[in-house]
């Protein structure tokens, strides 16, 4: 199966500033891909280049093997939901959704009916005649989604659409967007800087940093097998420790903080002796105890801060200058005190090795 959307060597410079280095990406038809990265990492620029609002300095973009190069935004048949929804304030919900059909010369009667069907699909039956200002943030979001989908676009682009919503509503909309996307099977690119959003919604996550793609993989792969130190640090909470490989064959490394560590997580890159590496251990893979635990690798730390989240807590301690984060069940936290010294332990398959 060949890729539906393909970006080949896409480069974008503004004067002497390189916004996008060299982007290669392939997206399958019907796939839900999230562009994740800090602000200024190039994710929105890539989206704007696909939409046609920015021209790529170099490289090519194709949809179903058709180049987009000479197509104006109007001709690309791409649905976009903007960060602030960009609803027309003078048009009702139904008129907003009808707009792209109107531009495609669909008659008013038929178009409005289709718009109302679409509003029903996004859960807004009965709100067709409201103006945007008479709708809540979540409802406006749904109208924007309906409007971007009503003309059966080849691609759906979502530019941080949930940024303005509060937490509960945001989770609700995540589920809702995913449901609608699946039902219509539209190829979707979702831009966000929120990693939980990326984790929960995507078939695949593309992590951006400094105008380049750090890694493009399924959410769990990104979490458990990050390709670079940046990805390991950016996604989830992490303990990143410097180490030197001592015995590549048996996966042993020497860390100034942890001592000798055996690494055994699946998907490890090939190692060589004396190679400088970074070890990744996720906080939930560490266990705290008063005494060293048998059958596990142990080290000792002093507890500095305990951050309580109710159902769980993060215990932050340090070994020398190195900070260590351990996630523990909420119930365990009552026996811990700041300033206590304690042991933390892990198993070999919790240790993932990154190239320096």
């Amino acid at each position, binding site marked *: 199966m060949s890729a539906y959307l393909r970006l080949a060597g896409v480069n974008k410079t503004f004067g002497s500033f390189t916004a996008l280095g060299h982007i290669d990406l392939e997206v399958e038809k019907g796939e839900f891909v999230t562009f994740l990265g800090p602000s200024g990492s190039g994710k929105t620029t890539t989206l704007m280049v696909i939409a046609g609002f920015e021209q790529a300095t170099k490289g090519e973009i194709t949809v179903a093997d058709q180049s987009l190069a000479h197509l104006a935004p*109007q*001709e690309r048949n791409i649905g976009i939901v*903007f960060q602030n929804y960009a609803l*027309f304030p*003078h048009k009702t919900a139904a008129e907003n959704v009808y*707009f792209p059909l109107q*531009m495609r010369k669909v008659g008013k009667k038929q178009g409005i009916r289709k718009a109302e069907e679409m509003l029903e699909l996004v859960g807004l039956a009965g709100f067709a005649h409201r103006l945007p200002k008479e709708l809540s943030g979540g409802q406006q979001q749904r109208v924007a989604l309906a*409007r971007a989908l009503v*003309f059966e676009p080849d691609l759906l682009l979502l530019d941080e659409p949930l940024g303005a919503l509060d937490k509960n509503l945001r989770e609700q909309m995540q589920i809702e967007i995913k449901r609608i996307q699946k039902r219509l099977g539209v190829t979707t690119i979702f831009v966000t800087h929120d990693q939980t959003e990326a984790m929960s919604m995507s078939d695949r996550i593309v992590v951006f940093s400094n105008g380049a793609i750090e890694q493009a993989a399924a959410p769990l792969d990104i979490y458990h097998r990050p390709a670079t130190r940046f990805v390991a640090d950016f996604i989830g909470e992490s303990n990143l420790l410097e180490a030197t490989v001592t015995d590549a064959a048996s996966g042993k490394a020497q860390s100034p903080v942890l001592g000798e560590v055996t690494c055994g997580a699946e998907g490890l890159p090939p190692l060589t002796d004396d190679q400088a590496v970074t070890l990744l251990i996720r906080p939930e893979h560490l266990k705290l105890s008063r005494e060293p635990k048998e059958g596990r690798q142990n080290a000792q730390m002093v507890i500095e801060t305990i951050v309580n989240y109710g159902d769980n807590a993060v215990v932050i301690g340090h070994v020398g200058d190195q900070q260590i984060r351990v996630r523990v069940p909420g119930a365990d936290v009552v026996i811990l005190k700041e300033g206590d010294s304690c042991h933390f332990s892990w198993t070999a398959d919790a240790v993932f090795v990154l190239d320096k």
Partner: protein
Amino acid sequence: MGLSLSALAERKTLWPWLLLAPLTIYLALFFLVPLVEVVIMSVTEPRPGLANYEKVLTGSLYRKVFLNTFGTALLVTLCCLLVGYPLAYLMSTVSKRAAMGILLLITMSFWTSFLVRTYAWMVLLGNNGPVVWLMQTLGIAEPPPLLFTRLSSTLAMVHILAPYMIMNIYTVMQKIDPSLIRSAESMGAYGKSLFRHVYLPLTAPGIANGSVLVFVICLGFYVTPVLLGSPREQMAAGLIGNQIEQFLAFGLGSAMSIVLLVVTLVILGIYHRRFGLDKLYG
């Protein structure tokens, strides 16, 4: 204790009124009293009764002048819109710096006394002025009269009032979210339909604000039409001036003023119901 508390409470309710007093007295003395006096004059001079109003509302001369006033105000508003809209659009699309430059040019003319600007037009359009000279050079042996015509007074009023229109429209255009335009483009809207379905409705509040301001100011314009306009196409303010200065017909002049005032208020009232008067102040 109880006494001082109630005294304090009294003082508290009194304070805001005391603070408002200078302004209230000023408004009453310089606006309300004269206005009431005009109303009284209109029904007492030269003798009590509604004869003045009857004359104003039924006399053919007065009807003609009022119609002419509205016609001129409408024409000036339309011209201001035709000149102002593209200019405001230009300002909203060029760089901040260039927009400031244009704004400076507009406000510079705005700050110049309109008496000066009116005289400037007299010089420009006069029989020995540059416009007539240009026409003669181009081979028009007998140029049509420019000064003291509808053309000259309309031109000067548009010049004087256009800044109101431009600034109102520019303010609204500047606030339009660029993502609205982008989103319309992504849905397939091109130049003409983009303008008709999105840009024009979004700028409509600015058009309404500017038009109401220009129209209302124009209704009561005195100096410019009197100095530049044709005596046969008099406007209401000029006629009121004539009544009072030349015929000492205080009652008739007052009645006309009140009719003009009422009409203006009705227009503002309609505008208020549709858009909200507070929008006029941005």
